[in-house]
């Protein structure tokens, strides 16, 4: 009898255990499926094996599927997806360009401001880092916010003037502090290497323009910030002005045309990055504006003994010493309206909450930056991050190695950029130069985007095309000396005015006042 009772009790216990197990299993929620875009580039091809992606799935109980889009045709593909209603659940790497404003205003994107409570981690960071005003500027004219941007505690000085330090030392030259100093240094280089053109553009002249113009009080070229390429923002009066026809711009042209005329500025304005590297590695050029992480490649492939490059803080010009304006809110996440229609509001809320956890929670943001503690890095007693041997041994350096091996630090996926944490991936000098630039206030914020109506946007686009063509043509001719910046200037200004530069300024200022 005792045996029977014991057996019965065992069976009963087993049954209860099984049932409770089944209940627990039933309660365990299935992972939430989210489809996202990834902007792919050939030097950083997306991998489904990336540790960061797998850990992010675990962290948020999701199944992430990435639709990989080559970055060359990114905008084209996103347009096609949004127009046809086939966009995935969330679009990553969305920016504040007029394209997205157009889609937002036309109802193709979900207004994020209707779902702010789904983003607690994001808004905590916004508050901690004092980014409320920056976020406010992302609201469009209809009063809606259409994307959740990445966040920076303060902007990085990741690129700037780079020059041959071995030659500076050899000829007893000080590191230039101003554009006039740079001119003198370039002249000395030219004297010793008459075949060279000391100053060279990376990719094309617009990279140089955008990194140097702010020191002349203007910001044209590629990173026009306001998208017109012919106007700039006055940080004191908080208004737009027609920079392309100002004396500041004339000074800038005087400087570059002088360098060009004396053979100090490479006449080949366009240089693919490998051509650019060849010129610098072989001593055909010595000064450029580029990115700190490119220096290693220049030195590694050179046969010049003792060749050395370094990056320095922005040079001082008539308008101060500034690098290109930078935003503390960059690319980010948008939710297409088709997701709302396809998956319903409850699911969209869940997706938003999951994305908030994946990218903006303390665990998530550390994951995308450093990886997993104990796997990709450990912490020393002083709290300093020590990367694993695989990362440290990589010839690409920690930053690139972490991207390629683990998917950490990839621009489309890392959305929280904390300067001190990022500096673990670089050498000490990079941290120092960043500090110097931060202390000198060398990076101005990107000017606020004017709130334009769709009609105004269209009008600006209509005026902009011929104006930018005209501007590019004259700029080229002024620098190359086929037009004289002293004698032909009035004709240039008259032509720019006749092509309605002032109209763009007026529309922008009206938009800024809203």
């Amino acid at each position: 009898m005792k045996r029977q009772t014991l057996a019965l009790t065992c069976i009963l216990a087993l049954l209860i255990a099984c049932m409770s197990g089944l209940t627990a299993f039933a309660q365990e929620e299935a992972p939430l499926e989210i489809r996202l875009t990834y902007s792919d580039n050939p030097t950083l091809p997306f991998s489904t094996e990336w540790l960061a992606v797998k850990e992010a799935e675990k962290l948020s109980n999701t199944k992430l599927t990435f639709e990989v889009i080559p970055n060359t045709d990114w905008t084209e593909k996103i347009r096609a997806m949004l127009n046809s209603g086939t966009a995935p659940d969330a679009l990553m790497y969305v920016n504040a360009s007029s394209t997205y404003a157009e889609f937002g205003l036309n109802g193709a994107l979900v207004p994020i401001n209707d779902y702010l409570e789904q983003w607690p981690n994001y808004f905590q960071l916004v508050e901690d880092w004092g980014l409320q005003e920056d976020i406010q500027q992302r609201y469009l004219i209809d009063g809606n916010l259409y994307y959740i941007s990445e966040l920076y505690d303060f902007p990085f000085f990741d690129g700037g003037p780079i020059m041959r330090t071995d030659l500076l030392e050899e000829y007893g030259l000080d590191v230039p502090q101003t554009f006039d100093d740079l001119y003198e240094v370039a002249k000395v280089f030219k004297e010793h290497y008459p075949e060279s053109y000391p100053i060279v553009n990376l990719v094309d002249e617009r990279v140089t323009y955008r990194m140097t113009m702010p020191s002349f009080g203007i910001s044209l070229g590629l990173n026009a910030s306001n998208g017109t390429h012919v106007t700039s923002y006055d940080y004191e009066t908080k208004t737009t002005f027609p920079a392309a026809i100002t004396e500041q711009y004339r000074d800038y042209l005087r400087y570059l045309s002088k360098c060009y005329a004396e053979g100090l500025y490479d006449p080949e304005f366009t240089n693919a990055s490998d051509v650019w590297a060849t010129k610098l590695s072989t001593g055909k050029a010595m000064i450029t504006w580029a990115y700190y992480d490119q220096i290693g490649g220049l030195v590694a492939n050179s046969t010049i003994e003792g060749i050395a490059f370094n990056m320095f803080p922005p040079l001082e010009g008539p308008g101060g010493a500034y690098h290109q304006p930078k935003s503390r809110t960059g690319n980010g996440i948008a939710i297409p309206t088709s997701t709302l229609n396809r998956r319903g509001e409850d699911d969209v809320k869940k997706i938003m909450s999951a994305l908030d956890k994946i990218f903006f929670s303390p665990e998530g943001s550390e994951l995308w930056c450093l990886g997993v503690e104990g796997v990709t890095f450990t912490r020393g007693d002083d709290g300093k991050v020590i990367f694993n041997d695989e990362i440290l041994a990589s010839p690409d350096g920690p930053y690139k190695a972490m991207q390629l091996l683990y998917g950490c630090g990839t621009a489309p996926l890392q959305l929280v950029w904390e300067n001190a944490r990022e500096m673990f991936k670089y050498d000490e000098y990079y941290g120092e130069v960043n500090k110097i630039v931060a202390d000198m206030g060398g990076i101005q914020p990107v000017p606020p985007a004017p709130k334009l109506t769709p009609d105004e946007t269209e009008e600006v686009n209509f005026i902009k095309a011929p104006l930018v063509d005209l501007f590019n043509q004259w700029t080229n001719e002024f620098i190359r000396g086929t037009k004289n910046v002293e004698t032909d200037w009035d004709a240039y200004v008259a032509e720019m005015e006749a092509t309605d530069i002032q109209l763009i300024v007026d529309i922008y200022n009206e938009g800024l006042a809203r």
Partner: protein
Amino acid sequence: MHDRSTGYRVFSAFNICLMLFVLFLCLYPFVYMLAISFSSAKAVINGWVSFYPKEFTLETYKLITSNAQFRIGYANTVFYTVGGTAIAMGLMCLMAYPLSKTFLRGRGILMKIVIFSMFFSGGMIPNLMLVIWLHLNNTVWAMLLPFAINQFNLIILVNFFRSLPDSIEEAAVIDGMGYFGILWRIVLPLSTPALATIALYTAVFFWNDWFYSLIYMNSNERYSVMVYLRNIVSGQSMAGAAAGSGSSERMTVYATLRASSIILTSLPIIILYPFLQRFFVKGLTIGSVKG
């Protein structure tokens, strides 16, 4: 052999030199690419490469062929090219043959529809919507079916079929052959120049396509290799269009990698051309003249 004048010999010598020079101009870019693809990055960056490889290495080829994205893209492109060309040739022949018959009722209106759609297409988004409604997007059929009938090629084929003597077909009918038999056993074998020409056009279209692959597909598993190649070759020229973040111009794709990608992706078509060139020229002439 008769004696040739000095003038003729001078002219011939000049002619040969000129042709060799033109040949050199045409071949040099390819030879240069080939040399770069087999050279070390250091040799290229220091400008040592001009005609033949320096510091010979197969590293970039190893690197690129070990890249999963490249391999998948390459396999996709081969599949799209072979499958797409086969489907296109089959369907175009089946459409062109009846349209070549003047006694076919409604032939005129059908031809007008074909010609109308050649000049006025729906555009990118309507085509994409159609592909989506048919549930073809992100499947191989999105590449194989929408391009099956190319109007221009169809017209060439219709005109070629029309140029064949009716008497041959009449003889076949008398011998008891049906239309499919006539098409398969008589018309197609007599039309090899036109078929080769159109097959080449179609194969080159599928091989070179990146745009439709990009638009109709949503994953690396489906993209053609040309999407990958375009990203490598054009990636840096996007710097001007970037938002100023600098991510594009930071992207240094080594010239060796670009060159080996270009060589590997253009090789099959380069190999194919000499074999079909004969048919290509003849076919083009016949189709157009008879039209």
